[in-house]
């Protein structure tokens, strides 16, 4: 539970596109780090540019 395995499994088992799954996984990684708004904004810029 502490290692976010459960919520990761929800994302990987979902019907979202691979792009969205990847985005959500990266968001979970940010959550683990207790990241703030800047990191999320950077993630959006990075992922939407790919």
């Amino acid at each position: 539970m502490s290692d976010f395995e459960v919520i990761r499994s929800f994302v990987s088992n979902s019907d979202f596109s691979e792009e969205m799954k990847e985005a959500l996984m990266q968001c979970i990684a940010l959550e683990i780090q207790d990241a703030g708004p800047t990191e999320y904004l950077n993630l959006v810029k990075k992922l939407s540019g790919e």
Partner: protein
Amino acid sequence: MKINRIEIANFGIISEISMDISSKAGSLVFLNGRNGRGKTTFQSALKWCFYGDEPEPTKFLSSFALNEAKPGQTINTGVITEIVMDNSGLTAHIERLQVFQKTESGGAKRVGQPQLIVKTRKSEKGAFTDVLANPEAWIGNYFPRRLMDFFLFDGEKMKNFFDLKVKGAVESAVREIANVDRFENIANQMSSAEATLNRKISKLTGAKAEKINMQLEAQQKLLVDLYLDYQKGEAELSGKKERKEEISVILSEREGLTDAAERLKFMELELTSHREANTQATQDFQTEILTNGIHGLLVSSFPELRKQVSLAKAEDRLPPPFEPDRILKLLDEQLCICGTDLSPGGKEAESLKKLIEKFQVSSILGKVLDTTSKQVDLLEQKMATGWKVIEDKNRAIEKSTKDIERVEAERDRLLEKLQDHDASEIRLLAQERKGLDKSIEKLISENATMLAQSEAATHKLETLKKEFELASKGNAEAETLKIQAVFAGEVAKSARQIHKIAINQVRTRIQESFTEKFSSIKNGKFRTEITENFEVRTLNEFGEETELSEGEKMMKAYIFSIVLREVINLGFPLIVDTPFGRLDSPNRAQLAKMLSVFLKEEIAGSDRQAFFLMQDTEYTPYTKKYFETLKPIEAYLAKDVKFENIKSSLGYGIDPDWLLYEAWKDWAEGKIG
């Protein structure tokens, strides 16, 4: 996870105990003790250690420690739990401490705030080197407060668990499993990124776009506020409904006691009235008995008189219905009032003279006899009436005695029911329920209004988004930012969707596992359904909701707790105060069977463990037999001979005190296998 060591100091009745089971094999720990020895204190101490929830002030600082301390001296109330987190040996030392100081007046004051320290080490032995900077967050992660009820269980409440707490508990558990807060947070972070990007776009594309964006942000804020208010309202509604259900159960348990105080008062009045009636009837009865007794004596003292009267009647010697003097006067006048000639020497006159002479002889005695006889007759009549009155009064005494007995029995029954309950508390509960009904109605209406407002705001938001899109067209940099903003919006939407999906998936998994276990235990085709509102219903093979006994309800709570551990991969021990409560022997055997499977399985890469805190009426040699294969570690909280009511100490095995009595004595003598 496996607790290795628990140390409690100066907490309630527990002055100082150190329970070290690190070298003992086994996953089941029995901590026994008679009532008042500190079992509940033990659980309460753990609750404080992990969650910081303090017991009532009188049950916090040990009164023994306070008595022993000198004024000005400090006393440390502390609890340490050492717990092996996983099979790699990672071990945590969790310590909570509150310092008190004894005042001059003999009371206690706190010195500073309670402190929480969490230290870890990478193996089961050695020093705890890693002191955690944020111990609260660490505990929140491994022992989520929302799952506290599944960690520190109260067996006494288990029978009502699915009636009172479960809706909130299931919802909390499911949300915890789904880590819903994280998805919520991701969604909020992405929405915030979207808003930041839109702000930049609006600045790049001119005043009109900026203005629309401001409206857009205001609308978004309104929606968030509405959502938060709605959630708050729903939580409040759920809390109030839960409280109402709780009150209803309490009141139904104390059925008929709602107006107990008034009824008692009325009964006392009724008793006084019946007692007065009884006293009056007794007095009347006694008076009547006395009067009739005297009459009886009088009547019975004249048997000869009665005999004489009867004889006089038979011989026609009783006074005639006319006066002889009057007849004599008629003779003197020589003419009867009926016109008969009464001349001297005549036949009628002679005959009348003879009759008068006869009556003149008997008249005096006859008069006396007649008067006395009439008086005796009167006395006899009075006696007959008196006996009737006596009978009536006797019936009245019997009735009022029965009334007194009935009302006294009724009052005693009520008092017995009230023994553990305060009548005024019951009245207050009934009043509170009425108040809750009104609040619930109001909240339902307010929440419905908020939903409608939210729909309207969403519609307006969509319109503003379109307007913003049009107003911000034409700027190359803005177009790039728009792509980013749309992407952020999509991620936010997906995060919210997955949150819902996750909850449903977990709900389904719990439902399936629960159904399987409960059905297997009950040997029937029971199905458990967890509704979208997180209500746990047990259905029979025809899909109808079934009524469960209190023992079955307890088993259901156990199963739910075990299922949660399996579905969540929840590793913390199961610590139950009064674990058997309403469980009869077959259910105890079933529980032992279920636990033996549960405790043998690993969970989240760590061992499982259960603590049962039991009193002598629930832990008997017969119950012990069910758990023999699990080889429980047995410990007990014993009374301190010198400080019986304020200090308990810890021992291992069966309390020697128990072995002196009944079944445990037979067990010690080998009479119970």
